[in-house]
């Protein structure tokens, strides 16, 4: 059920991209590279905001540390792991599979969040 939905969503993206760039042959030749989806998570006051983020497959999520203290973004199940992020530093990860990805700050483990990829 989930697989079918993902496939349909994927197909829709390709179709829309093709339609959008129909007048531009150089881009239309590679419709799958149309502007990828992106989303942001801000780190403020020792918390991830939003704490739970839902995005479509293929989305690149970027975390930005806005605290005066370094933090990390580490998948609880090992899917991704940032280096330490000092103030205003960023970490990005592209979610190519559907699923729920819980993560935390390995320095301040009370800080937790999740990305739901559909």
């Amino acid at each position: 059920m989930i697989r079918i939905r993902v496939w349909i969503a994927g197909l829709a993206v390709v179709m829309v991209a093709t339609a959008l760039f129909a007048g531009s042959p150089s881009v239309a030749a590679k419709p799958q590279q149309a502007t990828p989806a992106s989303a942001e998570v801000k780190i403020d006051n020792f918390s991830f905001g939003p704490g739970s983020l839902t995005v479509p497959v293929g989305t690149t999520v970027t975390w930005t540390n806005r605290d005066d203290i370094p933090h990390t973004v580490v998948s609880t199940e090992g899917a991704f792991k940032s280096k330490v992020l000092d103030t205003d530093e960023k970490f990005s990860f592209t979610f190519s599979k559907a699923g729920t990805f819980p993560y935390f700050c390995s320095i301040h483990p009370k800080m937790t969040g999740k990305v739901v990829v559909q």
Partner: protein
Amino acid sequence: MIEKSKDELLYDHNKDGVDRRGFLKCMAWAGTGALCVMQGGVLKSYSLSQMSQMDGKMGMGELSFVQISDSHMGFNKAANPDVVGTLKAAVEKINGLPIAPEFMLHTGDISHLSKPEEFDTVDQILKSAAPKDVFFVPGEHDLLNDDGKQYLERYGKGTKGAGWYSFDKKGVHFIGLVNVLNLKAGGLGTLGAEQLEWLENDVKHLQHSTPIVVFAHIPLWSVYPEWGWGTEDSAQALGYLKKFGSVTVLNGHIHQTMQKVEGKVTFHTAASTAFPQPQPGKADSPGPMKVPAEQLKSLLGITDVKYVRGQHALSVVDSTLG
């Protein structure tokens, strides 16, 4: 003997060990410095301002050492743009103590970002301290990006596992523990099974009368779990120390002084030399607390500890940098 005055606190330690009013009063003094000492089963507290009234006996003893913590070398934000200057001020404070400490303990967060030059700077500044030996345990800021490999290379010679160890000085048994590695999502500080097993064996053959000093970065008591200020498996560690008549636990991490007495165990957290953090729950997060520049040094400090044979507990005195 010390004259009784309105600043002196007395409570019967044998009744419950945790007189809440007494404890809170002791905490209230922590910002300006307090001395808590056990005499004949009774815990007495004195504010630092009273120290000059003492006859000097309190300051004498078999062993004197000093604890510093959370130097966060590399931190440069508004809460303290000059952590080099305040660490140097801490060293000057140590060098000015009336009784020279024999060694120093550093309870972690030596660096802010685990950068080699940050560790180098701290090592360089500490060279000008009168006590030449420094015993370290890591804070979470010292183990970034490499799970503590660099820390072990620099400070871990002769240690076990992630850097835990013990040593003896003048009949006092010191135990340095590591509770900042392999932290689990949603959890607190962790010692882990391997370290706990080592601890059990380390103290197994010691006599009950041996004074014990445990030092680790994150508090080994539940200061404020909502901010991660506690250690998951500290109860098991303290269980191995139950048989001892005097246990002093020294921690850092929370950048403020706090003290608690539970039975024969005295818990104490040291001030940072870098920046203060808010009191538990008194801010949105435990991040660095910005205070007016002229107040900063009154919230940073060092902790002086003395062991006097025959007294039940070690005396722990905090003093601020300004």
